[in-house]
C-alpha cells in the first residue's frame, strides 16, 4: 500500500509539472466562456446549451489525462526506462501500475474538479446575462451526477491507457489504442441498439453481429456514463443508477489493471 501511495504521489507530482496540463485548463476555461456568449444565439434552452458545452468541456479536459498525459507518463516511462528508478526499488510491477493509475486518477480528479468550478461560473454568468427565467431547469444534483459519471468514464480510460501501455512497446501505439477504445466504448452501445431495432430492413450478416457482440463484452459501455444531456435538461438521474455504474466502473478498472499486471510481470524491461 505504501509503495502504491508513493508511486501515485510521485506521478501526480510529475503530471502537475507538465505544462500541457495548464494549457488544457486554460483552453477549457476559454471554451466555457465562449459557450456562455454563444448561448445568446439560442431561443429558449439557454441553460441547456451552456451546460452542453461546459459539461463536454469538463469531459474533454479530463480526457487529456488518459489520452495524452497517461501515455507520456506510462508508455514513455517504460520506453525511456525511467521506470528503472522505481522498479529497482522494493516495488512490484502490480504496485507500480496501480500506483501510476492512482496518480493519473488524482490528476484527473483535480483537473475535472477545477473545470467543474468553471461550469458553475458559466451558469452564473449566463444567468446574469440572460435572466433567471432561462435557468429554471438547472438541477445541481443532476449536474453533480453527470460530472461524477463523466469522471468515472475517464477513470476507465485511465485504466485502458495503463493496460495498453503495458501491452505495447511504443507510446504512439498505446495512444492510438486508447483513443480507439474510447471511440468504440461510446460507439458500441448505439450499434448494438441499432442492430436490435434494425429499422432499415437491411439483412445484417451474422459475422458482423458476432463482432459487435464481442466488442460489447470486451469494451466498456462508456455511453452509459454519458448523462450530460439528461443533466443539461435538468432531469433527474436516479442515485441507484449512479451507484450501479460506480460498481461497474470499479470492476472494469480492476479487471483491466489485473490483466495489465499479468502482462507487465512477464515483460522484460531491457
Amino acid at each position, binding site marked *: 500500500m505504501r509503495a502504491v501511495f508513493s508511486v501515485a504521489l510521485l506521478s501526480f507530482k510529475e503530471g502537475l509539472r507538465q505544462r500541457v496540463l495548464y494549457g488544457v485548463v486554460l483552453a477549457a476555461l476559454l471554451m466555457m466562456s465562449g459557450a456562455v456568449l454563444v448561448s445568446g444565439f439560442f431561443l429558449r434552452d439557454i441553460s*441547456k446549451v451552456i451546460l*452542453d458545452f461546459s459539461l463536454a468541456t469538463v469531459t474533454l479536459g479530463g480526457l487529456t489525462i488518459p489520452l495524452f498525459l497517461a501515455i507520456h507518463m506510462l508508455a514513455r516511462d517504460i520506453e525511456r526506462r525511467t521506470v528503472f528508478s522505481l522498479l529497482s526499488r522494493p516495488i512490484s510491477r502490480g504496485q507500480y501500475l496501480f500506483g501510476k493509475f492512482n496518480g493519473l486518477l488524482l490528476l484527473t480528479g483535480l483537473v475535472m474538479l477545477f473545470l467543474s468550478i468553471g461550469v458553475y461560473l458559466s451558469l452564473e454568468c449566463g444567468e446574469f446575462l440572460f435572466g433567471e427565467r432561462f435557468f429554471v431547469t438547472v438541477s445541481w444534483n443532476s449536474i453533480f451526477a453527470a460530472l461524477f459519471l463523466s469522471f468515472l468514464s475517464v477513470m476507465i480510460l485511465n485504466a485502458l491507457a495503463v493496460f495498453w501501455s503495458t501491452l505495447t512497446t511504443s507510446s504512439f501505439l498505446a495512444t492510438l489504442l486508447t483513443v480507439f477504445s474510447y471511440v468504440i466504448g461510446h460507439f458500441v452501445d448505439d450499434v448494438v441498439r441499432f442492430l436490435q431495432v434494425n429499422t432499415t430492413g437491411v439483412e445484417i450478416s451474422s459475422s458482423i453481429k458476432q463482432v459487435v457482440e464481442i466488442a460489447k463484452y470486451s469494451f466498456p459501455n462508456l455511453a452509459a456514463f*454519458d448523462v450530460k444531456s439528461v443533466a443539461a435538461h435538468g432531469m433527474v438521474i436516479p442515485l441507484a443508477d449512479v451507484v450501479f455504474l460506480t460498481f461497474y466502473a470499479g470492476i472494469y478498472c480492476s479487471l483491466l489493471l489485473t490483466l495489465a499486471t499479468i502482462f507487465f510481470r512477464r515483460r522484460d524491461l531491457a
Partner: protein
Amino acid sequence: MKRSFTLLVFFSVLFALMGVMTDKVHNLRTKYLAASISQIGRIPSSVLVATSLEYKGVVADMMFLNASNFIGRNLMERRSPQPEEWQTFYLMLDRMSALDGRFLDTYVFAEMMLAWQARMYDEANSLLAKARRYRPDDWRMPYYIGFNHFYFQKQYALGADYVMQAANISGSPSYLPNLAARLAFYGSRSKTALLFIKELIAQNKQIELNPELEKRLAAFEAAASIEDAAVGFINRFDRRPVNISELVKTGFLSAVPLDPYGGEWRLYIDGHVDSTSNFVEREK
C-alpha cells in the same frame, strides 16, 4: 539595432497586408456560403447519433447554430429559401431531435420556420409529435400542433382537440380552455394567432431574430380587435354585424385599424376576419 528596426518595418508591412486581406478572405467565403445550409441532415440519424459519441448535445447545438445562421442570412438578404433548402432545413431539425430529443429550440424552430414560413405543416407536426414523446410535460408541443391544424390546415375540430390536450398539462396558461372553446364555436382565427404569436415571442429571447413576426403580430393585433368587437356585437344584439363600419358606428371599434401589409379588412358572416393582403408582402 538596425536589424530589429528592419524586422519591425517588415512586420508592420505584413501586418497591414493582413489587415487588408482579412475582409477580402471573409467576402471570398461569403460567395460560397450565400444562404446555403449544412448538408449534415443527409446523414442517417443512427450514424449521426453513434458518431457524436458523448457530444450529442453539443452537436445538436452546433447544428442549431448553422440552421439559425441560414435563417438569419436569408432574412438579411430578403430572399426566401427554395423548397429543397427547406427540406434540408427540416432534415437538420429532424437529426437534431434525434441527437437531443428534449432540445426545445428545435421544436420552436419547427413551428416558427417550418409551419409559419415554409408552410411544411406535416413536417412541422411530425417533429412536434416527436417532441411530445420527449417533452410530455410541455404544454406548448400539443398547443403548437393544435394551432397548425386549426390555423393553417383548417382542421378546426382537430385543432381544438390538441389545444384541449395542451390545456390539460399543468403549467399551461389559463386562457387555453377558453381558447379551445372559441376555436370550436367562433373560429376566431385572428385572436388565436395573436395569442399564439405573443406566446412565441414571450417565451423566446430573440424576437429580433424575426422582425417579420413582429409585423405579423401588429396585423393580427388589428384583426383580433375587429374580431373581439364582432363577438361583443353578437353578444349585445344577438345578430351578426353586417360590416366593419357597423362595428365602428355602434362603438365596439373606435376606428378601423390599419393593415401593415396594406390590404382591406374583410369581415365574414361567421365572425372571422381577414385582409385582402392575406398578410403577405406584395411583390414589388
